[in-house]
């Protein structure tokens, strides 16, 4: 029992990280209709800018993360305004491929600037842990869970109470509705990308803590793992991204140890995709997505 709970907690923590990355995808898809393959690039920028903040500017960890998130958000917004926006409405493929191009550029630039040596963020948790009701939980995992909750709360508050957030919600269902409120789609798209950048950056910083394996090249591929999450939850549903992330995180952890050998090696790697396919068989629009209405 304790063992299962222990695995569950681990799954929740890794699921929260997936959820943060998935939220980045969802906010862009929901507001602009673009599947943003460059999200992994923001994860990379987030962890290296946090490193820069720690090492070069001597910032405390939290401040470094916030600065990295703001910088990444800025970069994301600039990318959107300069290269993505011009093609955002030109069908399904050009925007996806433009973001693919960006996803190639960012890690290469990062490698040029920060080299490919493994680095350490010197985060406040290190390997510390706490005991809770017979379980031992890494402080970093608790931090991940708390950050995810805070980010989610900020997210919901933004969409529920701010004028821009409301306009973005309206724009998601009807682009003209937002215009009617006096907010242009340029602002909405840039804001969505900035949010995606910040989300990716925070996820990147948390991934690059000691407990997450340190700052290292190749972190952009973590975003790939979040792809089944966003489909599982529904491409345009923030709640779906979080639930989907938790589901995948937990399922993957249990798949590691609770799956018989007959299923072959590498099963836990495809488990998220199998879970996704299973859900899609029942609900083609994902758990929280709304069914598309075919119109004549």
């Amino acid at each position, binding site marked *: 029992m304790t063992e299962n709970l222990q695995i569950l907690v681990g799954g929740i923590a890794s699921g929260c990280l997936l959820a943060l990355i998935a939220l980045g995808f969802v906010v862009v898809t929901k507001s602009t209709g673009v599947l943003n393959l460059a999200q992994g690039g923001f994860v990379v920028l987030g962890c290296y800018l946090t490193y820069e903040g720690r090492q070069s500017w001597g910032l405390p960890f939290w401040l470094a993360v916030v600065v990295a998130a703001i910088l990444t958000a800025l970069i994301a917004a600039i990318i959107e305004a300069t290269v993505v926006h011009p093609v955002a409405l030109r069908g*399904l493929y050009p925007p996806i491929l433009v973001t693919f191009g960006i996803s190639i550029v960012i890690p290469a630039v990062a490698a*040029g600037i920060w080299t490919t040596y493994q680095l350490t963020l010197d985060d406040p948790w290190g390997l510390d842990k706490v005991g809770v009701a017979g379980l031992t939980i890494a402080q970093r995992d608790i931090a991940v869970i708390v950050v995810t909750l805070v980010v989610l709360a900020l997210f919901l508050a933004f969409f529920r109470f701010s004028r821009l957030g409301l306009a973005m919600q309206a724009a998601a269902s009807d682009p003209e509705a937002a215009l009617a409120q006096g907010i242009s789609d340029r602002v909405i798209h840039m804001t969505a990308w900035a949010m995606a950048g910040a989300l990716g950056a925070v996820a990147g910083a948390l991934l690059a803590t000691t407990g997450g394996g340190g700052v290292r090249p190749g972190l952009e591929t973590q975003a790939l793992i979040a*792809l089944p999450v966003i489909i599982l939850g529904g491409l345009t549903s923030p709640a779906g991204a979080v639930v989907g992330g938790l589901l995948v995180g937990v399922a993957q952890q249990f798949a590691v140890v609770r799956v018989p050998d007959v299923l072959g090696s*590498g099963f836990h790697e495809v488990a998220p995709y199998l879970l996704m396919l299973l859900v899609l068989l029942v609900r083609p629009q994902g758990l929280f997505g709304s069914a598309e209405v075919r119109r004549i």
Partner: protein
Amino acid sequence: MTSEAAAGPGASAPSAAGAAGGILVPRLTQSWRSRLFIVLGLALIVIVPTNVGSTYWLTVLNGVGVAAIAAVGLNVLTGYAGQLSLGQSFFVGIGAFSAQYFGGSLDLPMVLWLPLAGLLAAAAGGAVAPFALRLRGPYLAIVSLSLVFLGIYIARNIPSVTGGYNGTVVEATATLGPIDFERPTIGGLSFSREQGMFLLTWSVLAVVLLLVANIMRTRAGRAMQASRDHDIAAEVLGVRMLRTQVNAFVVASGIGGIAGALLAVNLEYIRPENFDVALAVQYLAIIVIGGLGTLFGPVLGALFVGLVPVLVDEISGSLPFMSEAGSDGLSTTDLTLILYGSLIVLFLTLEPRGLVQILRRTSVWLRSRRSPR
């Protein structure tokens, strides 16, 4: 000329219905110019390998040819039938491992293993097609991506066919009757394996292009394009969605399988990880950069994606700000990736309809300069 102007910039087809039965026979080529290009292209299939001695450049071009075949297949599904797929490398993988199984393990000749690789991949495509009917846009893209992960997982777990994690050396031999593409001889002259492979790969590409062109000018292909442009209207006009979808998937994955078989004999060593997401995305990049739903778009796109990194690599060696190999800083490959990524972004921002459209515009511009009204 005048009617063309009236029909708009995109129309290059002849316009008069009555004109010499021009529209009654759906021709492959519309002008002597394009016919000349085709003859020239066919000639190049023989001229290039016999005149290029560098095995390096031939290897690069062989890679381009294989990628072009796979992309032509994907273009049927994504460009013509409008189904966004990131799963083409799955079908390419099926083709590659079947080539080794039939041609290597079972030692069948190429006339059997090449079509069998295509058929097996086509069957897999037909099997997944019905599921795609329910999914649209990015959903289908990511679901098709899951095929790639599942494919690698399955391939790792059937080592008797694929060699599992270790992969397998490809023993299938590329001989067609008296012609051995691995040691071709023409009139007493012997050619290298790379030269033979070029001949094989690009000839298959030509055949595949012909088949796809034929499909797209006849009933089944027209149904695909109709369902891409307006699925509901197509259905109301009598186009059966499931049939059309299955057709598109079967053709796309079958061609992908053939590309995989050729990839296998070109590489000589394949492993499950060869057929990964990066490859799938690359195929999509090829058709979008080249021009979706156009016949030669995939070929142009494959040339772009295959040659740009190589050319940048050639140039970057002479750039002053590059880091020495082994030291820190920007590596040649990183620079290549940055330029490659930027070019993709640039091209799509400037011309989302691809290289084919740029070529068309250039030729229209050239013609208008030559004959000012």
